[in-house]
C-alpha cells in the first residue's frame, strides 16, 4: 500500500486497485464491470464464472482492512444490461452498512432508478471539498480530479531489454486515474510525462516508479 497526500488529504492506494480516502473514510473503486462475465455467457461465450466472484472476495478484504463509511464507484459499475449478476449485487448491497454512490460511466446503461431502488445514490459527478469525482478524465481549474474509465497501465523498462506491462494509479498535476477494479477488464497503456506520478500495482504491492 502507498499513502499519498493531495491538498492536505490522505489517500491510500491499495494493491487491489482501490483507493481509500482516509479523512472521509471513503473507498474509491473504478471500472468494476460487474456482470461482464454473465453478459458474455448469455451471448454464448463461455468465460469461467469464477472470474466474476473475484469482486466480492476483493471487496470483503477491503472492508475488513479499512473502516469504510462510504463507497464511491467511479463509473462502469455494471458492464451491460441487467442479468443475474444484478441479484447477487443487490443482495450484497443490502448487507452493507456503508453508503454507496455511483458516478455514472459510459457502460452504466441500467437506469439510475434501479440503482436507487437498491440504495445507491446515482450522480453524474460528485464534488466534495476540493475534489471532483467523475468517470471520465477531465480538466478543472479549481479541483483535483479522481476518475477511471481508461483502465490505465504503463510499460516498464529495465536492463537486459526487460519490459513489463502493469496496471497503475496514474497521477498527473491535477488528476488521479484509478486502475480498473474488475477482473476480466484489460489495460490501456499510457505514456507518462515529466511531473506525472505512476504507482504500479502488482496485486501484492503498490510501487512508485521513476521515469527517465
Amino acid at each position, binding site marked *: 500500500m502507498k499513502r499519498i497526500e493531495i491538498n492536505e488529504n490522505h489517500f491510500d492506494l491499495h494493491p487491489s486497485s482501490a483507493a481509500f480516502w482516509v479523512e472521509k473514510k471513503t473507498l474509491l473503486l473504478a471500472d468494476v464491470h460487474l456482470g*461482464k462475465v*454473465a*453478459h*458474455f*455467457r*448469455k*451471448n*454464448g*461465450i*463461455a*468465460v*469461467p*464464472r*469464477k*472470474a466474476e466472484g473475484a469482486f466480492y472476495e476483493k471487496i470483503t478484504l477491503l472492508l475488513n482492512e479499512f473502516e469504510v463509511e462510504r463507497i464511491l464507484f467511479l463509473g462502469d459499475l455494471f*458492464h*451491460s444490461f441487467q*442479468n*443475474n449478476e444484478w*441479484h*447477487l449485487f443487490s443482495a450484497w448491497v443490502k448487507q452493507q452498512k456503508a453508503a454507496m454512490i455511483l458516478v455514472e460511466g459510459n*457502460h452504466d446503461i441500467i437506469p439510475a432508478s434501479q440503482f436507487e431502488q437498491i440504495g445507491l445514490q446515482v450522480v453524474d459527478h460528485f464534488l466534495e471539498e476540493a475534489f471532483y469525482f467523475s468517470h471520465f478524465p477531465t480538466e478543472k481549474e479549481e479541483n483535483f480530479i479522481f476518475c477511471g474509465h481508461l483502465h490505465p497501465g*504503463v*510499460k*516498464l*523498462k*529495465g*536492463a*537486459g*531489454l*526487460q*519490459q*513489463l506491462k*502493469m496496471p497503475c494509479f496514474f497521477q498527473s498535476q491535477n488528476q488521479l486515474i484509478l486502475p480498473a477494479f474488475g*477482473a*476480466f*477488464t*484489460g489495460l490501456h497503456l499510457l*505514456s*507518462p*510525462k*515529466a511531473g*506525472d506520478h*505512476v504507482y*504500479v500495482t*502488482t496485486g*501484492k*504491492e503498490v*510501487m512508485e*516508479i*521513476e*521515469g*527517465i
Partner: protein
Amino acid sequence: MTTVRQWFKAQGWTPQPFQKDCWKAYGEGQNGMLHAPTGSGKTFALWGGIVQEALKVKKHPAGIQALWITPLRALAVEIQQATQRITTELHPDLNIALRTGDTSQSERAKQKRKPSFGLVTTPESLNVLLSTKDHPKSFQHLKVIVVDEWHELLGTKRGVQMELAIAYLRSFLPELRVWGISATLGNKYLAREILLGPIENYVTVNAQIKKKIKVKSILPKNMESFPWRGHLGIHLLPQVLKLVQKYKTTLIFTNTRAQCEIWFHRLLESDPNLAGNIAMHHGSIDKKIRLWVEDALREEQLKVVVCTSSLDLGVDFSPVENCVQIGSPKGVGRFIQRAGRSGHRPKAGSTIHFLPTHAMELIESVALQRGIEQQQIEDRIPFLNSYDVLLQFLMTLAVGKGFQPKELFPIIQNTFCFQTLDEERWQWLLNFLVKGSQSLEHYDEYKKVNILEDGTLKVLNKGIAMRHRLSMGTIVSDADLKVRYQKGGYLGAVEEWFVAKLKPGDVFTFSGRNLELIRMHNMEVIVRKSKSKKSRIPAWMGGRMSFSAHLSDLLKKALFNQRNQDTPEFKALEPVFYQQQRESIIPQPHQFLIERFQTREGYHTVFYPFGGYAIHEAMASLMAYRISLLSPITFSMSFNDYGFELLSDQPFAKDDFLDNNLLTLNHLNEDLEKSINVSEMARRRFRDIAVISGLVFQGFPSKPIKAKHLQSGSQLFYDVFKDYEPDNLLYQQALEETFDHGMERGRMTQVFENIASQEIVWRDCSQPTPFSFPLITDRIRSKLSSESVEDRIKKMYLQLEKAGQ
C-alpha cells in the same frame, strides 16, 4: 460424342502419363492422390476423369456432383474457367459455378435455386454450405470432392477443417470419392492418409516432371560493407536493378508485406523509367488491383512485380523469365515452388536469384542449393486434437440442421486429427457448447446450443447463429480496415493495430503510394495522396516462419563441408569468418558453441545448436528455465534459425552452468512442459484458438453488426482461463500446440542426444561476434523469469514522453 482424349488431340496436346493414369483410376471409382507441380496440367488430370464419367450419363439430376476445393480465392477463378472450358466443349449443358467469400448474395441465391454440375470453392465456403439446413439434400448427388494444393492446407487448421468436412460428407455419402492434388512433400504417405481417410481403394499418381533449377546468389562487390544483420537487403539494389534490365519479366519474392512495399518503392525511386512497368502484389492489396497485376503479368505488360507468398501458388505466368528471392525462403519446398514461377515454357529451366539480406544467409544459399540437388523436400506437420476447429465445426452443424452427438462422435474419431478423441473430452466439448462449463451452475444464463427433445444439438438463438456465420473460417488475422480515398476508390486493407498507431496527418506507405491519414470511420481508413517523402511502412504480422528440419540439417552440412569452401558464397564470406574466428570459433560438427559477452544492454549468452527457429524457441525457454532454478534471474530471449540468445541484467556463472550439466537429456519433456508454462509461450498460440473457437468475435468491416459490449482480446481470455479454469481444453490446446507443433518433440530429443556427444565450447568474447549479431539485434523477444514481479519492478523505470511530442 467426343471424349477427353479426342479433345486433347483437338487442342494439339498429348496426354501425359500421369493424366492418363488419373483418368483410368477415376473411371474405376478409385480415390487418389496426385503429386504434380503447378502448371503441369494437373487440373485436366482430374477434371478429365470427372467429365469423361459425366459423358456416360444421359440425364443429369439437378444438384452438385463435383466439388473442387482450392486454398486461394485467386486460384478458384482460374480453375473455374479451365474446367468450364473443357466441360462446355464436351457437354454444353453442364455448368461449373464459383463460390468464394467474394461471391455476391444474388449469385449465391441463384446457385441455390439452380445448382450446377460442378462447384469450385474454398474450405471456408464449403463450411458455409454445411451450415445450411438442407445441405444433405443439396449434396445428395455429390460424387467426388477434389482438394487442390493439399500441401498448402495440410499442416494448417484449414486442413483440419477439410478433414472434418470430408469425414462428415462421407457419413451420408458412402460412395463419395476423394482426390487430392499436392506438390511433392517429404511425408507423402501421411499427406494421403490424412486427406483420404482410413480407406483401401486408392491410388497414388506421381507426375514425373523434373525441372532444372539454377540458383545464383547475388553477391556484393565488397564484403567489408556487407551487413551482419538486417532483413531488407536494400544494399544490393543496384545488382537487382541490373537483373531486372536483363530479363523480360522478373518476379521479386519477399517474405513480408512490409518488405514488399519497401522494395517496390526503392526500385521505383532508383529507376524512374520503371514507372508503369512495375507493380506490387500482396495479400492486403485490394482484389481488383491484384487481379489487374495478374492479368498484366500474363499479357507481358510488366517488367517486374514485387510480391509475397501471394504469388506462390497456381496461376500460370508464362512470360516470367527470372525470379529473385529476397532473404531466406525458410524451406527447400517453398524455394522450389518459387523458382518454378519462372520458365514455365515447356522444357525451359528455372532460374532463381537468391539475395542474402545478411552475411549468415549466404551459408543458407549454399544449403538451399544442396537441398535442391538432393530433392530434400520438407514435411508438413499435421495438427492433432484441434479442439478449436472442432468446436467451430460443431457450431457450423448446430446453426444449420443440428446434430446427434452419438451419431457424430464416431465420424469425428475417424479423422486423423481426432483419432485419439475419447468419450470424456467429447463430453467436455458438448458441455462447453451447451452449458458453457463442466458443472451445473446456479443462476447461470449461458446460452449457445440447445438440446432438442430428440437429443439433437441445435442453435435456437438467432443472434448466436448470426455471429457464428459471420466468423466462420479458420484463417486468423487482426481485424482488417479498408483503406479508401476520400473521394472514393479502395486501395486494400491494413490491420487495425497498425492504424491505431497513426494520428490524422501522419503519412504512411501503402500499395506503393504515400498516403496521408485523414480519419478513421466505420472500419475504414480515409486517406489522400501525400507528396511527403517521409512515411511509415505498415508492418504486417505473421512474417515469422521457421526453418524446416531439412534446411537446418543442410545448413549444418553446408557450414562443415570442406567442398563448399570454394563456392563464391563462402569466398565472399571470408572476412566474416575471419572476424568470427578472431573472437570465437566456427563450430565443427563435434563442437557445441556457447558465447558470452557484455554490452550496454546486459549479459548476452548465445547458443548455436543450428536446429531451426521452432526448436530454438523452445530450447531457449528450456535453458532459461533450467538456469533460473539456480537463482532468481530474468531472461529476455531471441532466436533464429542458427541459435538463440539469453540476455540478462546479471550474469549467470559459466561454472554453475557447466557443473550442473544443464544441457542434459534427462527430464527433457518435464522441463519443457514447465518452461512452457512459466514462459507463457502458449499465449501467442492462444490468439488463433480464441478466434477459431468463437471466444473472440471480430466482426467484419463489410458487415458491421451489433456486438455491443462483447469485444474482448484473446489475451484477457488466456489470463482468465489460466487463473480460473486451467483444465479448460482450449487453454490446454494452446500448451499442447506449443509443445507438438511448434517444436516437434522428436526433433528436440535428437538435438539433445547430439549435444551429449559434442564437446561444449564456452567462449568469453570481448565484443559481439558476426554469428551472434542477427540474434542480439532482434527485437522480437520472449521472456522468462524466476524473480518476483516486485523484485523485477524495483529495478525498472518508465520511459517518459519527451516534451513537444
